[in-house]
């Protein structure tokens, strides 16, 4: 595929967010390359997912494990469904990565509602994207929450 521009990357990120808002976990996971990683650091500017704890640090088998749990009829934590609404914006291409990858930075706001409780999560996403014959694929999605290092309640769905 020819190198996508900012508009195509933005469209991709909007569609990615829509899959998450719909709870289409498997379709969302399929956007990752087979060796892709999803990472939400627990500290701002965290450089390392191995020697430091992370809010999420999952490859495809672990993402699928989470998706399967979310669909399980006895997943008590989601007995009351979680509904989310994401807005993605400020999309910037921040230079190519290794081997022709695309590095995109964007901002997001996500409102999450469960039962009678509502919270807002917001921050920056860095996507390392590969342009493949099937379209853009995610090698790494890194989500830096503005409140990464404040006390948190449960986070059950992908951000």
């Amino acid at each position, binding site marked *: 595929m020819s190198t996508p521009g900012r508009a195509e990357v933005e469209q991709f990120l909007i569609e990615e967010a829509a899959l998450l808002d719909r709870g289409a976990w498997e379709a969302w996971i399929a956007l990752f390359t087979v060796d892709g990683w999803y990472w*939400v650091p*627990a*500290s701002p500017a*965290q450089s390392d997912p*191995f*020697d*430091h*704890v*992370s*809010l*999420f*640090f999952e*490859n495809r*088998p*672990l993402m*699928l*494990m*989470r998706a*399967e*749990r979310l669909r*399980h*009829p*006895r*997943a*008590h*934590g*989601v*007995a009351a469904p979680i509904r989310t609404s994401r807005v993605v914006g400020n999309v910037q291409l921040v230079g190519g990565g290794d081997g022709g990858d695309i590095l995109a930075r964007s901002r997001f706001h996500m409102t999450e509602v469960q039962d009678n409780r509502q919270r807002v999560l917001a921050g920056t996403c860095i996507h390392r994207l590969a342009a493949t014959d099937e379209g853009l694929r995610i090698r790494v999605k890194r989500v830096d929450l503005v409140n990464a*290092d*404040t*006390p*948190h*309640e*449960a*986070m*059950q769905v992908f951000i």
Partner: protein
Amino acid sequence: MDVRTDTSVAALVEDGRANRRIYADPAIFELEMRRIFGRAWLYVGHESQVPKAGDYATATLARQPVIMVRGADGAVRVLFNSCPHRGALVATGRGGHVESFRCDYHGWTFRLDGALQSIPREGDYAGTGFDRACADMRLVPRADSYRGFVFASLAADGPDLAAFLGPAAANLDNMVDRAPDGELEIAGGCFETLQRNNWKIYLENLHDGAHAMIVHQSSFGPGKAAASAAADPLTRFRAEVVAANSQNYEQMGALEVTSYARGHSDMRGFRRAASDEPYYLDYVAKLEERLGKERTEAVLGTQRHNAMFYPGMSVHPVFMQLRVIQPLAADLTRVDIWVLRMKGAPAWMHRRNVAFANTVHSPSSIVKADDLEIYTRVQRGVVAEGEGWLDQRRGTEAAGADGARSTALSEAFIRNQYRAWRDYMAAEA
């Protein structure tokens, strides 16, 4: 009721049952802060967080702000984090390094041991009756450390730290002994988490083997599937940790739980800890260099899944996790989870333990998500009056050499926690 002298509250707990009021009544919560958290030894931090003179870390004990600081004399002290002038926090943030403390309100400064150093325009106090000798930052009444773990007590009297920890201290010994260099350090950040439940609901779950196959049904199946799909050892390890909750009643009933004096307890391990990965074999070899083969086998063979130091701290010795339980309100509890790094161990040992924390202690843990939901349901349920008492009689216990033996299917450790609760609550304070 007069919170200082009313001891009738102790009658809300009997051997084998607890009254629903103790989970939701704000007055009882205040009394617990005073009589239990105000007396017990509470974990403050680890000495490795303050290696040099002037290094400090902030903490909260029974909702009160404190500072753990290494003094010029090398001693670690615990000070109340409040200026003796008009009360402002003196240290802010999680920690750092200072030559001396300076309050940012009117600029009073204090030495690392809390002694008043200087007051801008101190002459203004001439003739006012102000006594410089009474203007030091206050030390928390008692502080002590056990093999690097720093504790403090808000009460001037009571058992010393070693007596308080009792035989449960063997769990801290085991953690330190597991390090090839014989030392641990805090490393790799911290999960700060909030639970919408009373602190005691959380403690009652710590060795509850009867809940796992009910509460964790949604995750252990997917865990098994992920373990067989995993292509690398770390992913397999994480998936197996999730799958381990599928233990049946026979397996849980075979897991030994020991209850000690003052509400402490521990439970034998059931998750895979040894491995044939090169880094693990390298680790065992390094440990053998220090301890020899026989002692290494004894140290690694002591497989405790977790240990509870009532009321505010829990450790997973094998995976080097440390949880600090801080009640914030009758229905709100903060739990911070730290990982300790074994000095001298191959890097992947710490990475494995970080992966364990990511799997079971992260706010995103698919295991914990269902526990948290159930704790919330208990909190929401207990306010229903109906039958006023909740039952804790499941399973028996038998006297052992250093504590009472039971299994993960017994509520003996819960009864033990409530004996401690009653002892603390029955004494005026």
